[in-house]
């Protein structure tokens, strides 16, 4: 239903030709990033992340469950995202649509494929009981760049997570009878302990419209790239997750436009630089290093 007047996209395009953005940022510059952890007491870990006016809350819940048969000694992780109608007049109630699922899967991939969670250390009883880690992403205020805000919220929440040994004590006591081998695990972990994590890759998203590529798109820039309103130039989106060594760990191209190889290479370089800065913000907020 939202109409973007073509004047608005024309003006943003005109600015872009002059090397400018509507809010005065450089093409590769992020808005202000703020991270707050331990915001939900019922969750094992949680974080509220703001990039500009966009706000995302991620919460981590853990439970004991059965391992997959192909990895009987590894913990299990699941990522879900809800685009609740609280966050935008354009989000509707109901089961997650394509947009929410793509978001959840891109965040999931950034965490899973780069093996941030050391799932091998989440085995409670080999072949039988493992920890399940649920990453739930709640969008609170949508003003552009959900991918990066959600990924960063998920990471910050993971870094604030304690494995809930005390809460599960009654279950462990029961399991002692059927699975005596649980005692090894309980001896090693008598009480709550931080979730075992590795170095996190950081996701950086850019969009292309009017033949320029801008990072951390604002809502206007994103909507123009998405072609809401009758924009003639088809936009495209690229998310690149890179690690501390500057290696690429996950990528996702979206929308109906296209990139040249040079644009992608440039975007990867800018993602590495931005990623390093964002990683420092993340570490500072979770008290790491």
């Amino acid at each position: 239903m939202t109409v973007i007047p073509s004047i608005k996209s024309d003006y943003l395009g005109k600015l872009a030709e002059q090397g400018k953005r509507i809010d005065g940022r450089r093409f590769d510059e992020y808005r202000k990033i703020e991270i707050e952890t331990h915001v939900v007491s019922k969750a094992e870990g949680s974080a509220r992340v703001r990039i500009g006016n966009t706000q995302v809350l991620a919460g981590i819940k853990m439970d004991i469950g059965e391992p997959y048969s192909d990895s009987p000694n590894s913990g299990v992780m699941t990522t879900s995202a809800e685009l609740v109608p609280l966050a935008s007049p354009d989000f509707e109630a109901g089961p997650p649509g394509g947009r929410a699922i793509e978001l959840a899967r891109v965040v999931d991939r950034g965490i899973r494929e780069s093996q941030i969670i050391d799932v091998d250390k989440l085995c409670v009883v080999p072949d039988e009981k493992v920890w399940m880690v649920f990453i739930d992403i709640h969008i609170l205020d949508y003003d552009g760049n959900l991918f990066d805000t959600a990924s960063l919220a998920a990471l910050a929440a993971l870094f604030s997570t304690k494995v809930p040994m005390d809460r599960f004590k009654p279950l462990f006591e029961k399991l002692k009878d059927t699975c005596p081998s649980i005692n090894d695990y309980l001896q090693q972990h008598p009480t709550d302990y931080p979730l075992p994590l590795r170095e996190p890759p950081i996701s950086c998203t850019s969009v292309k419209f009017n033949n320029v590529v801008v990072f951390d798109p604002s809502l206007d820039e994103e909507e123009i790239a998405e072609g809401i309103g009758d924009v003639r130039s088809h936009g495209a989106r690229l998310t690149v997750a890179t690690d501390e060594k500057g290696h690429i760990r996950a990528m996702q191209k979206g929308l109906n436009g296209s990139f040249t190889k040079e644009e992608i290479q440039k975007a990867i370089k800018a993602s590495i630089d931005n990623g390093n800065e964002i990683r420092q913000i993340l570490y500072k907020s979770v008290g790491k290093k």
Partner: protein
Amino acid sequence: MTEDKRKVVLPGQLLGEVSRQKAGHGTFIEDGKIFSQRFGVLNDHGEYLDVVPLKGKYSAIEGDFVIGFVIEAMSSSWLVDINAPYPALLHVNEAPWKVEFGETDRYLNRGDAIMAKVLPIDETRKLQVTLNDRNLYKIKGGHLIDVEPSKVPRIIGKKGSMIALLKTYTRCRIFVGQNGRIWIDGPTEGIEKVLEVLRIIEDEALSFGLTKRIEEYLKKDAMDVQ
């Protein structure tokens, strides 16, 4: 009572009595008493009271000049978003062109912006706008921004003083729609300057002596440029 004239009031707040004053916009009457319906600023005009909301959707009033976005070109009219709870209808008879049936999209299309005037509103609240008035047309070029409709009087200023200032110092054309949409056209630097000033006005919309301070700000800036 003078200093109470700019009081912020809440929904359900008692404002006065029907025996002494009339109940204006944004108020309701119960048992002879006048209450506020909205979270807003109370204006005591002596004879009557009204409440101007601090935030909220644009409530269309006949004769308002607004900026609309075309949602859809239909066979004999256009559907226009004017930032109100309902889209407004622009009938071909209210346009300055001779439009053949089914050819509306040759004149206005989805995404086009227009300056329009609100026509009389019937009790079913179906909104209609017209282009048949002075200086109303399809907007081309420039930039559009949104502000709270309640801040529009501030942005215009006393007898248009604030807008006149902005136009003088930035050499931009500016049209302020009563529905909170503002169109600005001119050199990019000028548009950026206007946006900057509008942001200041929005943040301090009700503080004292704003027009003067904005003038000083613009003057200083103009000297820096020289």
